[in-house]
């Protein structure tokens, strides 16, 4: 029984790592997808979007498998609810990255060259925030005492994302030569990207509570 339980434990840990890898990869893919779009390399952008769909499917499958294992094998009974919520929140972050690429693909926003760097920076802030959340998550499962080492970075990137987004929106609406509909379209995209870091911060806040609950 002893070895079976240890084997089962290492299997779940592997799945969990795999799932968090998918979230992390989706961030990197999102960042390079945005870059392709801004460089008008639509062929590469389409490939990145396809890859993102694969990652999202894989992430969903891993999340479901983890949830099933946690329940059927009655693992970590005291933290199971928190862990399930955490997995779903992380999955939502992955979905958000995919959703963003899809929006670019469907709505094809016309982004003026002078805003390219701002959009890149905004995307980068979101990816960094999510990456720090992924690291916090890994720490939560592996060594709860080191969660704080990553958590503060999430807050930092969220605040950076706010600043960049506000500045970008200000620039957009100060331009006289753009139609209002164009301005509002660009603003929607800026807000959508800004929300990624916001969501990452929400996950980090909940994680903070789980850490307190898990204090031995």
């Amino acid at each position, binding site marked *: 029984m002893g070895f079976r339980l240890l084997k089962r434990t290492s299997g779940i*840990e592997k799945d969990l790592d795999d799932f968090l890898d998918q979230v992390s990869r989706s961030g990197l893919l999102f960042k390079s997808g945005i870059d392709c779009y801004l460089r008008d390399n639509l062929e590469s952008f389409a490939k990145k979007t396809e890859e993102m769909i694969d990652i999202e499917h894989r992430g969903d499958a891993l999340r479901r498998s983890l949830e099933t294992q946690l329940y059927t094998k*009655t693992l970590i*009974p005291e933290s199971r609810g928190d862990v399930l919520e955490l997995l779903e929140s992380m999955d939502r972050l992955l979905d958000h990255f995919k959703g963003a690429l899809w929006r670019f693909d469907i709505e094809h926003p016309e982004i003026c060259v002078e805003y390219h760097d701002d959009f890149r920076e905004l995307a980068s802030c979101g990816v960094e925030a999510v990456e720090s959340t992924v690291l916090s998550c890994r720490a939560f499962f*592996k060594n709860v005492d080191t969660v704080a080492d990553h958590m503060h970075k999430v807050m930092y990137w969220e605040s950076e994302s706010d600043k960049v987004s506000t500045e970008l929106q200000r620039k957009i609406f100060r331009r006289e030569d753009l139609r209002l509909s164009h301005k509002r379209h660009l603003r929607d995209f800026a807000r959508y990207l800004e929300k990624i870091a916001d969501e990452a911060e929400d996950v980090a806040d909940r994680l903070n509570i789980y850490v307190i609950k898990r204090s031995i």
Partner: protein
Amino acid sequence: MFAFFLSSGLFLGWSLGANDAANVFGTAVGSRMIRFATAAVLCSIFVIIGSVVSGAGASETLGKLGSITAIAGAFVVAFAAAVSVYLMTKAGYPVSTSQAIVGAIIGWNLFSGSLTDYDSLTTIVATWVVCPFLSAIFAVSFYKLFVPVIKTCSVSMFRLDALTRYLLILAGIFGSYSLGANNIANVMGVFVPVAPLSDISLFGMVSLNAAQQLFFIGGVAIAVGVFTYSKRVMMTVGEGIFELSPVAALVVVWAHSMVLFLFASQGLKGLLVSHGLPSLPLVPVSSSQAIVGAVIGIGLLRGGRSIRWRLVGGIASGWVATPVIAAGVSFMLLFFVQNVFQQETYRPVTYRVTAENVDRIGRAGMDTGYLAPLVGEEFSRAVDFRDALSRSKGEPVTAGETATVMHYTEVDELEITEEKIAELDTTWITAEQREAVEALTGRVFIHTWRFDEALARLSPQWRLSEHDRDFNRALTNKRQYMYRIFRRHDTASH
């Protein structure tokens, strides 16, 4: 008939299994870390092993408090304890079987005029008070040791979960063993002096004396309680304790099991004594109070905000209230059974002081000056005899002195007849021992010590050894068996 009289003890065993198994396996089962069936099987096996292997220590302490001399009396005492537990539970008081049985024995002592050994009583009550404190100290120490180790090794969440499971199962096994060892005395202790059982040998490898056979039966009753009723209690109590955190819950179960073990293990006591260390008395304690003590210990470690002090007050009141109520219930039931059902609830004892007895007491190394004025007198109640001894001495006689005097003056007529010798269990009594008994055919002994000495003169196999404690224990059991076989049942008429 013996089986019927044993029923009250079996009921106590059942209730112990139904309630206290939750203290050892409740955390694991309540949190669904292990299946109930696995827990019930492990708990039953180890409760029975604990009872048979280590049950004697705590049982001896109860025996010192009061040794029931009639089977109907033992039935009533166990029944009174069960009734008291039921009544107090219904009234919403936290109650322990250990405390109820002690009260019920005192009730029997009062009813039969037997002496209550106040030294033993003080030791027992002091142990009850110490038990939750000790449990709290253990819990805090284990917690302080365990948590830094986990932090240093940075164990992952899932590995810690797996580790906690193993340790909870181990704690449950250890706890079940300790529960059996410590609490079997509550269930079967009062029946030990009156059980008409001789030693049996299992496949020529293991021999079980009368007490161990009783403990086995009691262990089985506990196991039945575990299987039939403990699941519900485990789901409730287990989840309650588990709110702590898995590691803290684990520490609580370990602390509880350790305390029960310390107050039950003759081996550990022997080891401590042999190294000149202070040892703990072997006393049946409350498993639930040990758990509560450990939980409070962890609570205090975390700042003490979540401790329910009313519960603590309830436990403290139980130390006094439960025995007093059980003694009252026991006294009333004994009166009822003796007078309405005409059952002998105690064997009337007569103490006869003769010059010969006094001489023998003198040879045992005691000052017998104050016994001389009592020569020729007879006493039918131990309490009256002790008072007379104290009056004659001019100061209270010690418990040790009283016990020695009573041993040599107690009238317990044994008549050695051929028919009774034929009844002897030849698989247990050796041929040489039997020959010695046969040589005494036709004789009547007024005192058991005279019979012991006559046998000792006839065969070295009837003599106590100077070094072999196991042999002496077995010989004492054989002597008790002989008394039961050869006792004249009209002794009461003396």
